[in-house]
């Protein structure tokens, strides 16, 4: 926003579309694979490999730790307990999300949809706070992205099924260098409104 890249609903939509097809696609595939029962420790390593920015890796683990707490309180499960024991400071959030979906009795499609939606809903609500964008405009951006979001989720589930057969290398590895670079720049600011 400071750099003038997001100034209103139209540029927010472009930003969200970019994030959906990169970070969102990877997160959705990770979540779908975890929901299908792929080893979450392997998925976590794959998430690390697909997240170049150390600040984003830290943020993903913090969010994973928070989600883990909520999930264990809501849908107690041996698999969640085991992952919490393996990663006391947090596993990557999409992996925890997929396992939480599994514990809640949901399928890979649901997990992929949640992860893909989260990849765009965060920036939209941040824009409402930082730019005082009309919240209805922000919601409209998300609604217009819905068909694309469905496609990303479907592809993520396909990739996750392939992971079951051939291993984690079948996960997508799309990335957006500017997201990674700005995450590093942001982490060095002395005063921050958001954790990442």
């Amino acid at each position, binding site marked *: 926003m400071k750099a003038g890249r997001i100034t209103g609903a139209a540029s927010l939509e472009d930003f969200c579309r970019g994030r959906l097809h990169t970070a969102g696609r990877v997160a959705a595939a990770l979540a779908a694979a975890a929901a299908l029962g792929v080893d979450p420790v392997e998925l976590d390593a794959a998430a690390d490999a697909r997240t170049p920015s150390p600040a984003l890796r830290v943020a993903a683990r*913090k969010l994973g*730790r*928070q989600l883990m*707490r*909520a999930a*264990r*309180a809501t849908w*107690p499960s*041996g698999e969640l*307990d*085991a992952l*919490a*024991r393996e990663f*006391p400071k947090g596993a990557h959030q999409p992996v925890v999300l997929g396992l939480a979906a599994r514990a809640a009795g949901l399928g890979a499609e649901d997990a992929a949809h949640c992860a893909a939606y989260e990849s765009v809903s965060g920036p939209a609500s941040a824009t409402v706070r930082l730019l005082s964008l009309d919240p209805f405009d922000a919601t409209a951006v998300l609604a217009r992205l819905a068909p694309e979001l469905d496609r990303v989720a479907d592809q993520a589930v396909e990739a996750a099924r392939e992971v079951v057969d051939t291993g984690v290398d079948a996960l997508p590895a799309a990335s957006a260098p500017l997201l990674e670079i700005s995450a590093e720049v942001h982490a060095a600011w*002395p*005063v*921050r*409104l*958001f*954790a990442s």
Partner: protein
Amino acid sequence: MHLDHSHEGASAVSADARRPDGSRRALRIGLGGPVGSGKTATVAALCQALRDELSLAVVTNDIYTREDAEFLLREAVLPPERITAVETGACPHTAIRDDISANLEAVEDLEDEVGPLDLILVESGGDNLTATFSKGLVDAQIFVIDVAGGDDIPRKGGPGVTTADLLVVNKTDLAPYVGSDLARMAADAKAQRAELPVVFQSLRSGTGVADVAGWVRAQHAAWTA
């Protein structure tokens, strides 16, 4: 006190009284109240009063800085590894009541890293009169107001004033200068809180400091009983 249940498995979920290794966790006391009422100064005074008898740690909550933690570090009330700053990034009450995960992580990490601990003080970022701590985060809470904020605050009430386990009315040394009527504040607080305790404190003159420390000591004795 409360919530003595525990979860099987890796680690505590929220207010579980036992840590993963089965030991009893530290007592957690929250300090809330309006900006500038003297929460950080009260935390500092409590650390000085109790650090020789209890193993202590502090979590501060600031909106987007670490100023409270830095103040406590400058005052050297505790070694630095016993003080953790949580940046809430949003309304402070959210982090102590609605989404307590960042604060839970801070208290758990302190216990892992510098424990065993007897007591963890969690200071809320200054907020309005409705801010209270979740029972999932703390076992008891102190609400700190000051006489300079207006002597009608106890009368106005609000969840902090009426339900906190201890109400501290701070900066009594300033009462003559701001025209606050301490007797009226005491009567209003009594009306709002019935049997719940109130301490009038001045960190300048030292009045009441021992009473607040004594209350905390009693909470700890009850927790370990």
